[in-house]
């Protein structure tokens, strides 16, 4: 019995490998296992080489691994590219039609088991389910929930194909890949993007504008799918500039507003971010990072846009930036982002990346009753004649009213303005307005999410990371158990409060920043706040996610004094 398996399904775009992968993932979660999915795809609709890796475990799994236990090859290239990663007691399953003569390959007659190519992915599902010992009712249930909207005879046909593939696999008598029973309570199957979507819904999002861009497109698509049910307006804009301006307009009109994009699209939004800062309009901005500059590697992952988001928009205004480490944090921090955007009346950012955006995990269902009320604007004031949108207050925060819902007037201007919102070039007012806007920094400073520490009390080595690197770094410290390594993870990367972390840096012999970029952007940011002795970096910028093995190999090299 296995405690853990890493299954990689590979093939061309258009062969349905994501469908098999998602069905299998759902079946595993419903069977009580832990999963961690990594999706790697090329920027094309047909052809190329795509993979869907499911790492499944009886215990928690939080990081990709390179060693493959079961390789499912839908084309020849998959075998050639990945066979060297298959473990010595691993297995390669391939479509019988792939003309490749080699020992140790198991053929699956996809064509014989499926009435048409449409059903081939269910053959894969049936075979794998039998191989790892899932109860047949599990994949069957997943087919019903995923294809349930289609005609009943489509569901029935799929189940028949599943049955024959399951029986065929049992007949092959392949042992050694059955998973041990797991006691995990079946939870939700969520990607980082799903976490953001559900968080936005729980926060009461009303409006989302976007221009399609990998890896964030899934966020507006999922919101739109529930638009009728929840009354969410999602608009595909003509470009990202329009998207951010629409979101700011909708927020002025009283809707909780957001945009979702990636680096290139976000670059177009920068003037709009500055508009949100100047007009003090709340907006939540999700940036799913991918490797740049320019179009870069459109479907791969990186943490290279921290600097961009930190400094985006001309002029000076406060902002907060979150870097969630997993789908749970995506959910929690998206709710927090909406609340903080309203309370500080400005832009709040969520930085994810392709790895996290597309990575399915099993998640303990959220307790919605625990969620605090998210701040809102108002539609009433005691003296409508005297209402001023930018009234000068001690906190810098002025009452925000929704226009047209009462007899008051709400005037907003991208030019410098009087407290009543009208344009001015009075330079004394200018100074007061700058001070007012910057005072709101205190709202953000009072509510910083401190970094989380994992590991021994007095670590000799400390890993420091942010955002999606949490899982891989966590596994790295667990696998380095003899080496006394700790981990400090930041899920909020701006603003920072050095009282939250300066003590962690004082005792370890080595402090190692782990980031998926080439400059060590977060390290630079931390070193601006505190002096870090013996600082090192483990960086990755080949477009692939960090994994525990990658981190530990480089940590060993550092410890041995090799570069």
């Amino acid at each position: 019995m296995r405690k853990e398996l890493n299954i990689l399904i590979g093939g061309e775009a258009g062969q349905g490998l994501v469908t098999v992968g998602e069905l299998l993932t759902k079946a595993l979660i419903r069977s009580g296992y832990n999963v961690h999915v990594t999706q790697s795809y090329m920027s094309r609709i047909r052809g190329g080489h795509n993979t869907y890796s499911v790492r499944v475990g009886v215990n928690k799994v939080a990081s990709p691994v390179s060693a493959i236990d079961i390789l499912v090859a839908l084309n020849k290239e998959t075998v050639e590219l990945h066979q060297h990663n298959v473990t010595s007691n691993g297995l390669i399953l391939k479509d019988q039609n792939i003309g490749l003569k080699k020992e140790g390959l198991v053929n699956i007659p996809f064509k014989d088991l499926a009435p048409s190519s449409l059903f081939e992915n269910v053959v894969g599902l049936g075979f794998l389910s039998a191989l790892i010992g899932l109860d047949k009712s599990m994949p069957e249930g997943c087919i019903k929930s995923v294809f349930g909207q289609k005609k009943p005879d489509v569901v029935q046909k799929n189940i028949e194909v599943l049955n024959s593939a399951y029986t065929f696999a049992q007949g092959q008598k392949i042992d050694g890949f059955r998973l041990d029973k797991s006691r995990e309570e079946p939870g939700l199957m969520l990607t980082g993007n799903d976490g953001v979507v559900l968080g936005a819904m729980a926060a009461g999002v009303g409006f989302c504008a976007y221009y399609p861009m990998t890896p964030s497109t899934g966020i507006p698509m999922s919101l739109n799918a529930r638009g009728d049910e929840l009354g969410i307006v999602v608009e595909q804009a003509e470009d990202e500039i329009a998207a951010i301006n629409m979101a700011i307009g909708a927020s002025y009109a009283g809707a909780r507003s957001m945009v979702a994009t990636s680096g290139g699209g976000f670059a177009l939004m920068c003037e709009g971010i500055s508009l949100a800062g100047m007009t003090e309009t709340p907006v939540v901005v999700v940036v799913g990072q991918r490797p740049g500059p320019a179009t870069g590697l459109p479907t791969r992952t990186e943490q290279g846009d921290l600097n961009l988001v930190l400094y985006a928009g001309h002029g000076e205004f406060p902002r907060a930036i979150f870097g969630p480490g997993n789908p749970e944090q995506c959910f929690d921090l998206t709710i927090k982002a909406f609340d903080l955007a309203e309370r500080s009346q400005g832009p709040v950012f969520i930085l994810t990346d392709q790895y996290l955006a597309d990575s399915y995990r099993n998640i303990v269902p959220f307790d919605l009753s625990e969620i605090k009320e998210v701040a809102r604007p108002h539609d009433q004031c005691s003296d409508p004649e005297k209402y001023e949108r930018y009234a000068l207050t001690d906190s810098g925060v002025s009452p925000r009213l929704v226009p047209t819902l009462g007899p008051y007037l709400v005037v907003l201007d991208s030019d410098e303005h009087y407290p009543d919102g009208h344009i001015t070039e009075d330079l004394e007012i200018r100074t007061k307005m700058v001070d007012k806007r910057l005072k709101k920094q205190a709202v953000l400073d009072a509510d910083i999410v401190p970094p989380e520490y994992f590991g021994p009390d007095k670590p000799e080595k400390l890993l420091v990371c942010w955002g999606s690197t949490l899982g891989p770094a966590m596994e790295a410290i667990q696998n380095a158990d003899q080496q006394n390594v700790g981990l400090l993870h930041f899920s909020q990367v701006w603003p920072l409060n050095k009282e939250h972390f300066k003590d962690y840096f004082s005792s370890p012999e080595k402090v190692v920043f782990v980031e998926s970029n080439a400059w060590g952007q977060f390290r630079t940011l931390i070193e601006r706040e505190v002096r870090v002795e013996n600082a090192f970096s483990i960086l990755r910028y080949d477009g692939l996610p960090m994994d525990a093995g990658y981190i530990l190999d480089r940590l060993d090299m550092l410890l041995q004094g090799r570069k």
Partner: protein
Amino acid sequence: MVSIDDFGKFETAWCPGCGNHSILKSVKKALVEMELSPHECIFVSGIGQAAKAPHYLKTNVFNGLHGRALPAATGIKLGNPGATVIVQSGDGCNYGEGGNHFLAAIRRNINLTLLVHDNQIYGLTKGQASPTTFMGHKTKAQPRGNPSGPFNPVAVAVAMQANFVARGFAGMMDHLSDLIVQAVRHPGFSLVDILQPCVTFNKVNTFTWYKERCYELKDHDPGNWSQAMELSREWGEKIPLGVMFRGNRPVFEEKLPHPTGEPLYYNIPSKEKIKKVVQSYA
């Protein structure tokens, strides 16, 4: 009863004799005629001399970025479909920096009104050619004459079958005010391109230049698209003013998930509904 005085009196940043003054008066007159109270309207503008107009009107104002008035107005209208949303900005803002948004707004056909102060020149930046400046028009920035051909907003809007397309002139205030009323009342996206002199920077298209050429359309059926196309190309010795085209494409808001016209501000889905969605991910 709503009166002109309800919309306030302000000192402006405009030159004496600027067409903006009379456009502002026409706007106020139209609002009074429609009996719209100041707090029921939202005026949206970008940047430029025309874009300052909403500041000289006692109403709700969103004075956003250069070229981006239409996207902001789109978000506002989708957030609050019941509000009367009027966009007011210049030729450079709407047809230059915001050209893509102009095309998208016509396609979307959201129920909002675009008033373009079209003086065929950049005023705020002191006299460069705008998208509607004639070819050959000499400016300090185009000393050899404007090398690019002009954009014809009315022809483009008619070609795309915008729901309401009209041309007005700042020198004919009552006529203009009537066009604005018709534009606001017509469902879907409405364009009123308003010709106006720039007394400081456009020495070619002066008040007299427009006055001599502009004529009011009579006996034109705005429902006749081919005729409207033909008219929209008439520009030079004679310039037609009035409603060029009226379309009846369905209004964007009808397909919204909140067709009642309720502001999104009031839409708070219950925890039960959210819970149902969350459970669908199990």
